[in-house]
């Protein structure tokens, strides 16, 4: 920052501040007495035609209030960073106070996380307190994409069903949140051409029993076997190890329409689930994973809660 500021302004502010405070004190001292001509005068202000006010003295304690403000401001400037050139005897900073308060809050909730951190996800999902914390975390960090009811949306998976891109075991869910995922479907538009993409899309439709053109599906089957089985498997059931979706079920991350499937095949997809390890820490992710696992395993979670 030094290249952007010079020490001049700090000195400038400090000098103005201190001179002003001292000048207030001198002014007060000088203005304690006055030379008057014999009797009490009015203040010279007149309202409502003829309403005037005596210029009577202030109570003596009032003067001390003035001096107290001067002493207060000097003590304050000595302790806190008010003068730009002096950081204050207490070394107080707003970021320091934030760090301190945060550390205090973290220390206060740590026993809770220690307790929950040791329980397995299955058991935690049955604990109402842990679920409430998990829901809070979910609504803060996850609802933006997965929606507040965790049922997802266009391009964002539904977390309440039993269909899992990367596997629905507690460990897999926890791993997904901690490290994030990057689901890549490569574009096949150049390799397959428009007709080829349409053929393979019809085959994919037929896999999950949706209405499709059977001739195109026949052609598409061969294209599928040549290009897609590496990830989606010979029967199209996908591979959770690399996040390749199962194409035979009724769950569609993007719409189940022919047009959407053609778009996926032609242009590919690139899905990013961000990593939350640094942002939330392993303790919170553990509770969050338990909440999410419980959404699609509510019977088991209930059983664990008993």
């Amino acid at each position, binding site marked *: 920052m030094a290249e952007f500021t010079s020490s001049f302004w700090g000195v400038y502010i400090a000098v103005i501040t201190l001179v002003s405070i001292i000048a207030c004190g001198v002014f007060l001292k000088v203005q304690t007495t006055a030379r008057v001509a014999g009797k009490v005068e009015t203040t010279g202000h007149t309202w409502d035609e003829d309403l005037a006010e005596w210029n009577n003295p202030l109570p003596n304690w009032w003067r001390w209030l003035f001096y107290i403000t001067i002493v207060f401001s000097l003590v304050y400037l000595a302790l806190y960073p008010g003068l730009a050139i002096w950081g204050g005897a207490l070394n107080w900073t707003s970021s320091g106070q934030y760090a301190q308060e945060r550390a205090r809050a973290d220390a206060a909730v740590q026993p809770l996380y220690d307790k929950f951190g040791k329980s397995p996800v299955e058991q935690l999902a049955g604990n109402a307190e842990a679920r409430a914390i998990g829901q809070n975390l979910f609504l803060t960090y996850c609802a*933006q994409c997965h929606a507040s009811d965790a049922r997802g949306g266009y391009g964002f998976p539904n977390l309440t069903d039993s269909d899992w891109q990367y596997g629905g075991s507690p460990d897999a869910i926890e791993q997904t949140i901690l490290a994030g995922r990057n689901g890549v479907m490569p574009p096949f538009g150049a390799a397959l051409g428009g007709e080829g993409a349409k053929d393979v899309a019809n085959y994919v439709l037929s896999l999950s029993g949706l209405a499709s053109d059977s001739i195109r599906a026949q052609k598409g089957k061969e294209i599928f076997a040549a290009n897609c089985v590496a990830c989606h498997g010979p029967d199209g059931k996908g591979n959770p190890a690399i996040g390749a979706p199962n194409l035979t079920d009724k769950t569609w991350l993007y719409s189940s329409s022919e047009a959407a499937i053609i778009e996926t095949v032609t242009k590919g997809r690139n899905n990013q689930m961000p990593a939350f390890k640094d942002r939330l820490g392993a303790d919170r992710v553990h509770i969050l994973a338990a909440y999410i696992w419980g959404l699609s395993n509510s019977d088991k979670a209930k059983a664990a809660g008993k």
Partner: protein
Amino acid sequence: MERTVVNDRLPETSAPPTAALATDDTEVSLYEVRRKIYPRAVHGLFAAWRWGLVWFTQVVFYGLPWLTWNDRQAVLFDLGARKFYIFGLVFWPQDFIYLTALLIIAALALFLFTAIGGRLWCGYACPQTVYTEMFMWVERRIEGDRAARMRLDRAPMSAGKLSRKLAKHGVWIAIALWTGLTFVGYFTPIRELLREVATVSLGPWETFWILFYGFATYGNAGWMREQVCKYMCPYARFQSAMFDKDTMIVTYDAHRGDPRGARAKKVDHKAKGLGDCVDCGMCVQVCPTGIDIRSGLQYECIGCAACIDACDQVMDRMGYPQGLIRYSTTNAIDNRWDRAQMIRRVLRPRVLVYVGILLAVIVAAAASLQARVPLKVDVLRDRTSLAREAEGGRIENVYRLQIMNTRETPHRFKVTVGGLPTLAVAGESEFEIPAATSKQVPLRLQIDRGQAGPGSHKIDLDVVDAEDPGVSVKERSVFLVR
């Protein structure tokens, strides 16, 4: 034209440093040391009124936190939970308008009473007056009345003086601390608070506020007294601006009283050219702000009418009619009206307008309170999640409903929707909300594909109490179609 001087006071009784000057061009202090005031004890009609109000306000203030209602403290302002209990009513931050209504009523009532009877609030009901009255009572019990107190203060320090002073301050501090505790008891359940005091486990803020409010009571009622009214209180000053010539204020009838002078009871003072005022100075001795009411209206006068009580007793002893100092208006004194004439003028348009507005605000606030729906609903559409495809190709939007049940019993609420064909709630549509609780619940709405074009559509949500259909709230939101 002669000037009316608002804080008109006689130079003789004014601050010595300034007023005692006789010579020209002298160096004087712009600050004066307070001269301690030793008000004499006073009895009579208006003193009885004041004590009545001391008892009434303090029984209410000290007593209210101890009452119980529905197994909770009857009057409790729970700042942490943001719930404000007043007997059967529970106020939420959303009901803030009622506090506004209360403040408007209080302000208009102040205008009204001041326009009719001057500083009635200051003289009878203001906490500063009420606590000063209580503290002066303690002072009189321990140190004696005016003359005894002045003697005691002039006397050198002795064991007797020290013990009296210690006793007085001890009792004052005890009252002040109890007042602080009661005050905090409106915000923290007072029984718990007392238990915490007994076990020395008060929280830092509770401790601070008890001591702060206790210190304010002790300092203001024990030490500052009339200085609070003279130098600190804005209401004192702006009430003076609401007087007019038909406002009943504490007034000395100069036509009747002057010229003043001492005389024997049997002497015909009229023959000697004297007025009714015997110049005994009782009205000055009883004055809590140390002024002489015979100099006319002064800004220091808090309208306590102690001088009326004192003067009436002197008039009785002298065998003169009461009311040399009395509640009267400037017009009545100037024009020598009788009481009936004066009161007719007191009921002037200004007073009637205040009464009208005050009644209108009270009626409106009461009606609104009566019609208050004990249910509040907020619809929060998921901001980032637009339309999505649900089972069967239906289009789904997600909402969160913030349902606030302000009654102290649990209730079930049913949600119905309308505004689009085939629009319906998917999943849960009835929600149980515990007593006096605000709860956020998820809500999914679906329509069939093709029922509405792409874009945003206005929809209505009705939230109705399942057992009591009279309690319902209608909210609007939007449904997005892709």
